[in-house]
């Protein structure tokens, strides 16, 4: 499980970085989204992974905190997702404005010669 998650994060981050360095605005925004997925998964993983265990508390018995993952990163990642989503939406609007004003979808607002 660890190897699946960590390689998933790695692939997301690598493809995100590659796309951010591309010249078209659509590629950049996809790259930023992929990078933020990688970051969010990474935050999620800092709460440690737990396999083959029930995700809910069993109220009948005394609760052992060690049997569950740390819930704090899950709440952190929620905040991070919300903020990331909002800023990505804002960024999309800016890129549309750039496309409208410059007539080109190059990140510099003009086609390279």
């Amino acid at each position, binding site marked *: 499980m660890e190897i699946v998650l960590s390689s998933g994060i790695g692939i997301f981050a690598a493809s995100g970085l590659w796309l951010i360095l591309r010249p078209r605005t659509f590629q950049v925004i996809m790259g930023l989204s992929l990078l933020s997925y990688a970051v969010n998964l990474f935050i999620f993983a800092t709460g440690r992974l737990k396999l083959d265990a029930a995700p809910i508390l069993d109220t009948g018995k005394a609760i052992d905190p060690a049997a569950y993952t740390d819930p704090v990163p899950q709440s952190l990642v929620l905040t991070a997702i919300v903020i*990331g989503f909002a800023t990505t939406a804002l960024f999309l609007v*800016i890129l549309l404005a*750039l496309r409208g004003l410059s007539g080109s979808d190059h990140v510099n607002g003009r086609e390279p010669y």
Partner: protein
Amino acid sequence: MIAVFLHHIMVLPVILPLITGALLLFIREHSRRLKSALALVSTGFVVLIAAILIYRAQELAPQADVYNLGNWAAPFAIVFVLDRLSAVFLLMSVLTAFCALIYVTAHWDRLGAHFYSLSQFFLAGINGVFLTGDIFNLFVFFEVMLAASYALLMHGSGLARVRAGAHYVTVNLVASSCFLLGAACIYGGSGTLNMADLASRLALLPEDTVLICQIGMGFLGIAFLIKVGMWPLCFWVPATYSAAAAPVGALFSITGKVGFYVILRLSLLLLENDTTGLHAALCQILFYGGLITLIVGFTGVLASQNLSRLSANSVLASTGIVLAAMGLDHPALTAITVYYILSSTFALAAFFLLIEPVERNQDIAANVLAVTMEVYGEDEEEEEDEIGFYIPATAAILGACFTLCAILLIGMPPLSGFIAKFMMITGLFWPQGPARAYILPDIQSWLFIIFLVLAGFAQLIAMTRSGIRLFWASLDTYMPKVQISEIIPIAVLLTFCFTISLAAEPVMRYLDSMAAEIYVPANYIHSVLGGAINKGE
């Protein structure tokens, strides 16, 4: 009673702008007078509170005032922490923001929608960064500030602004990812995000976990240095600052200082008792990075064709000076660095505000402005807003302001820019104070002194050149018209510089004791975790 009151006003610098900003959204865009009045009253209140907090922080020192949000005990929930470092930065930024807001009332608020709401949210974010004692909360306030700044940068629209905005947003989204990675590493390693708790736990952690935390700090460092604009992370700075509208440029001159604050706060809190060599490495990075930023900055100043470029590169030069001085890592120098930050922030903000009126009758600037006015179809109601009589002899007034800004930025006597640079150099020769024998500084200090002086010289050449080009032109081509609400904020900002020049001794006494305090992390840790010392009861 009064103590409880003083304790509780600490949250107002965050809450008041948030509420005002939200309220302003409900007022129609046409009632600009009402909107600007509300925004100014709210910001004025925050200035007042920040001034009170300066005294409050001094009174409680060396303890910090700790505010438990929701009354949860410190390590488990978010706290606000006020000490002299945060109080100084808080007052500086709200004063600058207040001046920028006065300036906006001239005509800038009609270039786009919701300027006042955005500026209030921006202010809430900045004040939150200065007050919070929690790393993840720091991230949230950073994002509040940045989200507002994205929209502010594009205030007035136009291709240049949107293009600079797209780059600025991309860079900052990547920086935010770095910030999150860093925060996650720190939480994964230490199990806490409370700064004080983290500082006290670091020494107790096993070695491999400390390594994870340090990787996290590295990520945080990259994020903050992007925001500060240290070479090689600074290429967004000139384009962004020179594209921004004048009052937005003044507001942006605060954002870099947010990075300085966080670097000072976290490096002194987390790394002061560090034995792994990370602190030494950070100092080297800051010093050489700062030096290169300074070189890039003053080369850019010399190469600048117009005033907006010149001011943007001056930001880089002053950033370089501050970072290099931080890299030398000396308590006395830290106090002087904060003094320099005060002086350069006010001077740069005044300069940003001054550029547009000065260049108004020059073709390019006037054209850009005319185009943006057209885009927003503001022509029809132009007449009623010609309030504010035109000042006679405006060229003389603008020229005087320009000269004062130049003196401040170059660091010529007698103003605060000179005092700061002079103190930096004497501080390196007489680290124990002028009464003791002097020591010969090491190589790093010599490099710093040489480039500090060179940067001043480059600034002198560039400012003289553009001053001659602008003000010694023949009068029939150069007749600037300026509204009084544009001159007042510039004059006020310059007055702040006068004040800290005249009152250099009390200001430095305050900053010296502040530096001595933040170099002992135990003060901060004990205030936050030590129980109900300053609950005001």
